């Protein structure tokens, strides 16, 4: 029964499937092409397989949706057939009452189905063909566009450089630093040069408006300060020169000088003196004189007015004098003179080393303060300019705690003692001396905390302060 109806239904189903496939494929192709075009203009590359996958997925979904809309339900098709074939609701009646029985109903079904069987399927229109060409045309056009559009090239854009403006706090701190340096026990000549550098930095930063320029300027000043310190501190060069000279007699002394270790230097001088005495004041004195002179000879031109150099050369002269005149005098006199010469040498060398240590520490204090004020990390400094060089450093500038026996440099390593993050000494501006930083740390921390909570310190610097003291306290605060 209703075979006539079913032949129309089959035709419409096929048409619905074909239309859905065409539409789905077109939408899939259109969407994949559109996506490709958009991503090309955004310079984004995707695996080609993904485009295929997206296209197929969109095609399946859209095609499915359209088929759901287009698929001919019996009721819809019946209405269409009645209208197209002018059957006056015969088909609709047949479908509406297909499950009911009755004399007239059977006649109605038979009559209607016969009419449908006798009607060619093509007599019913399935929709205008041009409507189904729009999407494929659009899809092809989009595909062509996607193929033609070139991939956008990415030109790296420079990020806008952060700006810089010298804050009042930074200005105040820098001014205070200059005052601290001026008031320090640094030697006058390097002090003046350092102050000039710092004052120059202050005036330069007032006109700087970019952070990169600021950092460059500050790092330049730091480099200059270190160079000044290097220029005026002879301990490492003299020590290195003496060591390089190959004069074994003064090698230990040279090593002590290079490490800026007054105690060791004193000990070595004492050893030298005792060795001379043991040799009953013999040619060892001449040897020593020549050794000292010979070892510092290369540094003569550069360090001729340097206190350490003068102390060494004075020792050499004094020992040489004793050796040269000892035959005119008694041995007692010679020993006395020898003792005097070595004592003077110890004093002079100690004083020279102390001064140079003061210079170094003041310079390091200034550098550290500059780094802190302007939020610059030590890693940003040029290589070799890293300020984490403690006193008593070796030739490479690294701190070796085992080599450092200077009481001023003892970092508190001991049983039951507080361990800090560094063994550096620090300039105490209240006492004017270089002390273990543990002695002033609490005081400095309290003051910093006060400043922080007073509202005078910008927030970004508060974080720097916290990190700074956390490091010093080894994380305990």
């Amino acid at each position: 029964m209703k075979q006539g109806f079913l032949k129309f239904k089959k035709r419409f189903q096929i048409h619905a499937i074909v239309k859905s496939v065409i539409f789905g494929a077109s939408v899939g192709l259109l969407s994949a092409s559109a996506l490709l075009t958009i991503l090309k203009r955004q310079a984004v590359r995707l695996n080609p397989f993904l485009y295929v996958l997206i296209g197929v997925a969109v095609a399946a979904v859209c095609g499915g949706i359209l088929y759901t809309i287009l698929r001919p339900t019996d009721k819809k098709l019946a209405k269409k057939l009645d209208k197209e074939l002018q059957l006056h609701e015969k088909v609709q009646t047949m479908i509406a009452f297909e499950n009911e029985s009755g004399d007239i109903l059977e006649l109605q079904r038979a009559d209607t189905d016969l009419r449908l069987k006798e009607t060619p399927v093509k007599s019913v229109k399935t929709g205008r063909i041009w409507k189904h060409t729009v999407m494929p045309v659009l899809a092809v056009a989009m595909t062509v566009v996607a193929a033609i559009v070139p991939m956008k090239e990415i030109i790296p854009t420079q990020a806008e450089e952060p700006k810089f403006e010298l804050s009042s706090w930074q200005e105040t701190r820098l001014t205070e630093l200059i005052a601290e340096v001026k008031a320090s026990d640094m030697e006058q000549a390097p002090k003046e040069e350092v102050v000039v550098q710092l004052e120059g930095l202050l005036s330069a930063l007032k006109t700087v408006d970019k952070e990169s320029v600021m950092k460059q300027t500050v790092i330049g000043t730091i480099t200059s300060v270190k160079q000044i310190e290097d220029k005026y501190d002879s301990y490492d060069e003299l020590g290195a020169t003496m060591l390089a000279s190959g004069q074994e007699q003064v090698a230990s002394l040279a090593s002590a000088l290079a490490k800026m270790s007054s105690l060791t230097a004193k000990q070595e001088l004492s050893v030298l003196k005792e060795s001379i005495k043991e040799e009953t004041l013999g040619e060892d004195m001449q040897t020593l004189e020549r050794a000292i002179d010979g070892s510092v000879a290369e540094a003569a031109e550069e360090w001729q007015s340097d206190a350490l150099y003068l102390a060494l050369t004075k020792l050499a002269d004094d020992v040489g004098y004793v050796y040269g005149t000892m035959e005119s005098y008694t041995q007692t006199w010679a020993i006395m003179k020898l003792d005097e010469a070595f004592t003077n040498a110890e004093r002079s060398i100690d004083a020279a080393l102390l001064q140079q240590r003061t210079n170094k520490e003041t310079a390091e204090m200034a550098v550290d303060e500059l780094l802190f004020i302007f939020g610059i990390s030590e890693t940003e400094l040029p290589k070799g300019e890293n300020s984490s060089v403690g006193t008593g450093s070796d030739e490479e500038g690294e701190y070796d705690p085992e080599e450092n026996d200077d009481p001023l440099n003892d970092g508190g390593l001991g049983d039951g003692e507080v361990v800090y993050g560094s063994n550096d000494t620090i300039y105490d501006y209240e006492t004017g001396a270089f002390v273990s930083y543990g002695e002033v740390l609490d005081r400095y921390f309290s003051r910093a905390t006060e400043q922080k909570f007073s509202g005078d310190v910008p927030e970004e610097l508060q974080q720097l302060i916290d990190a700074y003291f956390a490091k010093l306290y080894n994380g305990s605060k």
Partner: protein
Amino acid sequence: MENMEKVQKFNGVIENVKSELRKDVVGQEDIVENVIIAIIAGGNVLLEGVPGVGKTRLVRSLGKVLSLPFSRIQFTPDLMPSDVTGTVVMQKDEKGNMKSVFRGGPIFANLILADEINRATPKTQSAMLEVMQEHKVTVSNNTYKLDEPFFVLATENPIEQDGTYPLPEAQMDRFMFKLIMKFPADSELVDIVKMTQITMDETAQAVIDGPTILEMRALAATVPVIDEVLSYAIRLVSNTHPELEKCSVAQKYIKYGASPRAAQALITCAKVRALMHGNYNVSYEDIDALAHAVLRHRIKINYNAVNDRLGVDEVVDLLIKETKKASK
């Protein structure tokens, strides 16, 4: 095959009735068809037309064709209800005792011709109400059922308004159809004159009886109608009501709309019409074709329609148009 025979018999009877009626009634094919539809559907018909168009002749001819007891009631202003329904009279029995006996009026027939029904008084007209609707008569607290099939075919003259009593809406609603018999065309008038020169008597023969009508009625009732067509018929009737504010035509031109009997009449008669036309289902066309006959006496047009020179049939046309438009 049996089903087909039934339908063939149905259509055969219809054709026979039509051909017999054509012997006495010239033209008026639509009127004849609608009268047949109403009879098979079991409804009453009101025929309106100017004198001489063949209203009474059609009914009398129909009475012959249906081979049913036929009664003609000429309504006049002095006609009493008892003249229609009958009355109780005193009568001597064999023993000479007086007893009351009911004497049925002319209403006791299968086919009633109520001629010029609008000339009767409202009291007499109301006597017809019970008869037309319920097919029974109540006199002196006794109810007398009328034989089936029972039809009332009434006529009224639209010209003579003096001394007439317009039928009340309640009675009008009991007529399934109101059919307007128009003045015949010249060619039809020629045929009428020629025919009546031969004889004025009706020559139609009986071709159908009461049981056959009842069988045909039962068969027509089984014709299916889909929900969409049913809804369309209902919408058409409800659109006649201006107070429902569903239809602009009703709001503009109609004073009051049709009763639910109109929807019943539409569907019942549409089934008969569909079968008569060789269809086994009711279509929109069947509804549209019967809308005028069903609605014209059930709706009251207002002064706006009169002002716009629209008759009730034109208003029904507009209603059909607007209902179709809303259905799409």
